[in-house]
């Protein structure tokens, strides 16, 4: 299975990191530009709606502060997804009482959709969005990383803290659930 170009260990990312470490602040801007939109997509797919740019910014701040710990075993983007996922979990823990999320022992479905929902005008897209919103959080994460970002099961497993086999199972379970929702 091939890896998405942006998620393969990238020579350009490594070059930019080296330039930033040498004092070139423009390298940071370029690195942000290369990965910020993907992080925003991932955040949206997780059901985050409010302050996405702040979340993405926090992800980069954390990443650059701990760049010494990035060994390059995975791609920079995969590492960024991992950091952001942890931030989302932390954010939800602290905001759980305020947000309108139904939580049933680890099965969390995002029931709050806001301005982004109106962007998808066609009925198929809206139904798909509802279908993906009905998935468990882990299924939604795996499905969005596999379908939305084209990551391999190995990369997804690293991000969500699972195994490659489990990531494959989560993906196919999610896909089945989406199909069943659309068939209803």
């Amino acid at each position, binding site marked *: 299975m091939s890896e998405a170009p942006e998620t393969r260990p990238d020579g350009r990312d490594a070059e930019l990191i080296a330039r930033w470490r040498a004092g070139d602040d423009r390298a*940071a*801007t370029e690195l942000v530009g290369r990965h910020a939109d993907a*992080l925003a997509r991932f955040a949206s797919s997780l059901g985050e709606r409010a302050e*996405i740019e702040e979340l993405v910014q926090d992800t980069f701040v954390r990443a650059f502060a701990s760049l010494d710990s990035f060994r390059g075993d995975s791609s920079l983007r995969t590492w960024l997804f991992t950091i952001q996922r942890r931030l989302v979990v932390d954010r939800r823990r602290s905001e759980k009482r305020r947000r309108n999320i139904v939580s049933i022992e680890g099965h969390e479905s995002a029931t709050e959709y806001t301005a*982004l929902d109106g962007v*998808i005008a066609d009925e198929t*897209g809206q139904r798909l969005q509802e279908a993906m919103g009905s998935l468990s959080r882990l299924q939604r994460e795996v499905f969005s990383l596999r*379908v939305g970002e084209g990551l391999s099961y190995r990369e997804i497993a690293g991000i969500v803290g699972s195994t490659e086999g489990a990531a494959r199972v989560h993906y196919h379970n999610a*896909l089945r659930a989406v*199909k069943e929702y659309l068939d209803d």
Partner: protein
Amino acid sequence: MTDCPNAGIRDLLPDMVHSTLSGSDRERVAEHLSGCADCTAELALLEDARRVLAVAPSMNAARIAGAISRRPAVRSNRFAVPGTWRIAAGIAAIVVGGLTWSMLSGPSTDELQAGVEDGVRAQTIFAAAPGNGSHAVSFAGRLGMLATDQLEALLAEMDDMDDSPALEPRTVLPLLALDEGAER
């Protein structure tokens, strides 16, 4: 919507969506799709899903990059300032308290005798962490028994501690137990 029994091909469909398949895999999948309605429908579903998942607010890379600081990450260190100052303040409080008590009550003959008979039981407050060199502050078990020159030596040690490299406590008096909620 039914599922094709060919799991291997179905696993490659997200990569087909992202155009990341190798030449031979792409041909194999394309050949399968030409005769499989289930996989053709699933591919269309995944393409729609990717479109929906791509909906996210656009990020301002320059603004995000502006938040990235070059300040190195602060590592947890119980004896970094102001922790060192806190230790010194604690010791000073003990010394002052001991002196005050001894001035008010005066050492009894028994205490004097006990101090001589027991000898000096040095209580090590700090032990240098491996690799940090040796630097210890010691004082006799009974503060009130310290002579002026001994107190001066203790305070001089405390002054030297401010310039010492980071230490990790091996044995800390309960009174001086520090818990700064260090970052993990």
